[in-house]
């Protein structure tokens, strides 16, 4: 019998992680990507690369935790751009109320077995002397870190064997186990994995089961980021304001929050914003709000030279959880998307889960919360969490 063959659409960090996991299980993989190389076209090229254990939802926490654990196994630690930089996360509280909510988060993290501790007053400034002295305290999660997604994606792909990559090739239609390319070529496989980021559902052939097409939705969330010149690495931790996750899923208006990521290149990546829509041109007004927000937590950042600003689109879902599993009602076509602002963190865990399901293995994590079939068949308007 022929080798098990999988077509993966999209060579972002998720598609490449799937290629890596599937090829480890003996599948022969064809990776199809519209862009010129791995991790250089979609959200993977735009994201910050914070590897963060998010405590908002118990299931998401598990997915992040498994992702973080796998990244730390996959990559060498503290070797600059090509590895896992163990910076830790420092969540920042501006007042007592926020500090209390961080303390509750700490307790939840503890019960999930995640190391974390809160700091107050001088303790905070010992950790990060550059922070605003008016801050009340923070929550430190020491094993969180930073990866540089495009490079890590390229490395992961170079390590995967039995993967044929076809760059500069666009998929125009996906059916159950069958893919059509823009030149009209039709390709069949034992399994098709769609990992095309914000375009996840665009080419799904809806005629076969239009019911699902109505309820599965990807809501793009644009984000603005900026990078400073070298010689500005004044932070050791990734620092984030306590209210950061606001506006991550569901229906949102504009949300701006301070998230500053130190890079091993002695630079700072300043973020970020959220508003509905795809990645467009940089809006100077939004960019200014982001940098002003960062100034509030790290005084002086506004005076650092900015080398570049850019936008990216996160792929959000209606219920705030990624879609990892088969297209409802289909057997051979699988989805891996909807990661919003956590796809870099979660990519290895999501890929592992998907590969385990495709190969009918026992899953490391519970598959239920992510199964695209979980979505209730109801009003298409969606609800926010």
């Amino acid at each position, binding site marked *: 019998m022929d080798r098990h063959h999988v077509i993966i659409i999209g060579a972002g960090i998720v598609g490449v992680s799937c290629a890596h996991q599937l090829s480890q299980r003996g599948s022969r993989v064809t990776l199809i990507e519209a*862009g010129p190389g791995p991790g250089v076209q979609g959200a993977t*090229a735009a994201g910050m690369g914070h590897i963060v254990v998010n405590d908002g939802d118990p299931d998401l926490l598990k997915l992040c935790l498994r992702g973080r654990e796998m990244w730390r196994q996959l990559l060498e630690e503290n070797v600059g751009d090509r590895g896992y930089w163990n910076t830790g996360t420092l969540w920042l509280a501006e007042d007592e109320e926020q500090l209390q909510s961080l303390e509750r988060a700490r307790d939840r993290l503890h019960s999930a077995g995640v190391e974390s501790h809160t700091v107050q007053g001088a303790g905070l400034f010992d950790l990060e002397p550059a922070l605003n002295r008016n801050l009340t305290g923070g929550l430190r999660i020491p094993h969180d870190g930073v990866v540089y997604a495009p490079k890590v994606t390229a490395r992961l792909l170079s390590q995967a064997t039995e993967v044929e990559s076809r760059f500069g090739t666009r998929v125009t239609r996906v059916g159950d186990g069958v893919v059509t390319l823009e030149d009209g070529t039709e390709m069949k496989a034992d399994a098709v994995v769609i990992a095309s980021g914000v375009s996840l559902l665009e080419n799904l052939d809806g005629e076969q089961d239009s019911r699902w097409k109505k309820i599965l939705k990807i809501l793009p969330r644009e984000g603005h980021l900026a990078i400073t010149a070298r010689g500005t690495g004044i932070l050791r931790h990734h620092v984030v304001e306590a209210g950061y996750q606001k506006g991550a899923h569901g229906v949102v208006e504009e949300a701006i929050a301070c998230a500053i990521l130190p890079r091993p290149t002695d630079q700072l990546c300043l973020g970020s914003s959220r508003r509905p829509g795809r990645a467009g041109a940089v809006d100077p007004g939004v960019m200014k709000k982001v940098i002003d927000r960062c100034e509030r937590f790290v005084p002086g950042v506004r005076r650092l030279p900015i080398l*570049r600003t850019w936008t990216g689109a996160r792929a959000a879902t209606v219920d705030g959880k990624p879609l990892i599993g088969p297209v409802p009602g289909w057997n051979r076509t699988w989805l891996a998307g909807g990661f919003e602002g956590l796809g870099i963190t979660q990519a290895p865990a999501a890929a592992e889960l998907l590969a385990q399901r495709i190969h009918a293995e026992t899953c490391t994590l519970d598959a239920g919360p992510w199964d695209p079939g979980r979505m209730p068949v109801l009003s298409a308007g969606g609800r926010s969490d």
Partner: protein
Amino acid sequence: MTKAVRITVDGASLLAQEGQSLTAALMMAGVSAIRRSPSGEARGALCAMGSCHECRATVDGVRGVRTCLVPVKEGLRVEREMKLSRLPLEPSPGGDEGGALQVIETGLAVIGAGPAGLAAACAAAELGMKVVIIDESMGPGGRIWSHRHDPPLAARSWLERAREAGVLKLQGYSVFSGRAGILDVARVTDGKRVRIHCQSMVVATGAMERFLPFPGWTLPGVVGAGALQSLIKGGLNIDGRRVLVAGTGPLLLAVARLAKESGAEVILAEQSSLADRSSLAIPLLLSPSRWKPARQLLKALGGIERYSSSWVTEARGGPGLKEVVLRTPAGDRVMEVEGLAIGYGLIPETRVAVGLGCDLEPTGAVRVDSLQQSSIAGIYCAGEPTGIAGCEAAIDEGLVAGIAAAGKTPKAGLLARVRRHRFWGQALEDAHPLREDLGKLACDSEILCRCEDVTVGDVSEISSIREARLIHRVGMGPCQGRICESAALCQSLSGSDTIRPPWTVVPGENQDISSAQ
């Protein structure tokens, strides 16, 4: 005429001339290494016109200032970026919300005060438009008319007309972001922001030099050909120095002439062959206005050591430049020199136009119609961004753009002149074809991207500029690919990079609240 002033460099006091370019002042004091690259190499000025950012330093406490754009004044404090401190920062003025932004309302905003920009500004202002002209260099005039004391004869009337017509000048400000109707500009020396609201724009950002990597091209003391010109005009004294002017194009002749007139012992090496250049004979015969300047130029160059079909294969030294290997038809020659000025022709500076959304031609020049209007209504483009054709073309295109922006129709004679200039520009370019060997001078260990120290070998396995940037960091530094993109194209990488704000890297925001309205 020049006043001696004191500046400090890394705490040490030294003498300089008021109004001199800071880079030139540093070089005169023997300081040619201004910063360290990420891997620790000493680097100095390359372009002397604000593109490469190799000359950046902390000036009066402001990080990332391009010293080639800063005029010297008494008491200037310079810290070289040899070792950057990472101390906590001072809070920014204006608190977390920032200060109020200074806003200028105008009819026409002209970007670039070279011949094209000045002509556009004069034409529009004389037709009654309110005009603001923004330029990042030390004084008006662009490349060819840049000056420290008296403006050259040809420039004088334009500067005079601009003054009389009430053109508002923002000199020493870079345009770094915007869209149709809005421009964001920042002062080169301290990042002070100004926003400009305008009805229309003329993009007249000129050209920059093409640099191709070769062993030793990152040594401090190796500068662009046009860069040497700018540095001399900015107050660099090269009297008695032995310098090699090499590369390609008519610019080399102008540079060699200025260097010679400035007292240097000049050697000139042009990579194209005499046969290539002989194709210019007919276009030259057809344009009598060029005969006299050409004769004068040839006369001025008399007596200097000249090589044709010759190019630099290596520069050696350390820390400074000591000798150069020149490949000539008669074999390789090793020459001891104190300076190397090298440039491989000019490329249109299109960042602002592209950033504004204007379409490009396949040649890389901005696409314009016969009224110099770009693909975006109300955004005109004139001079070198629309194709390299020299000063007269820049002036005439500037006039057309200015007249059109003011809603009038340029005369047919003017439009015909523009067409003739384009023909001449093309003839010049055709007469200086780059030889293929030039793209292969750098071995794998040679630096391709100077900002990020990416080597030629690092990108040998990939095929696109996009991967070179995102995976290997080519063009991720302050020059944002300006210097390395043309070099990368010669290494057979394809595509182009996206232009994102800031179109040119400026110091961080430092709003002067007191002057804000």
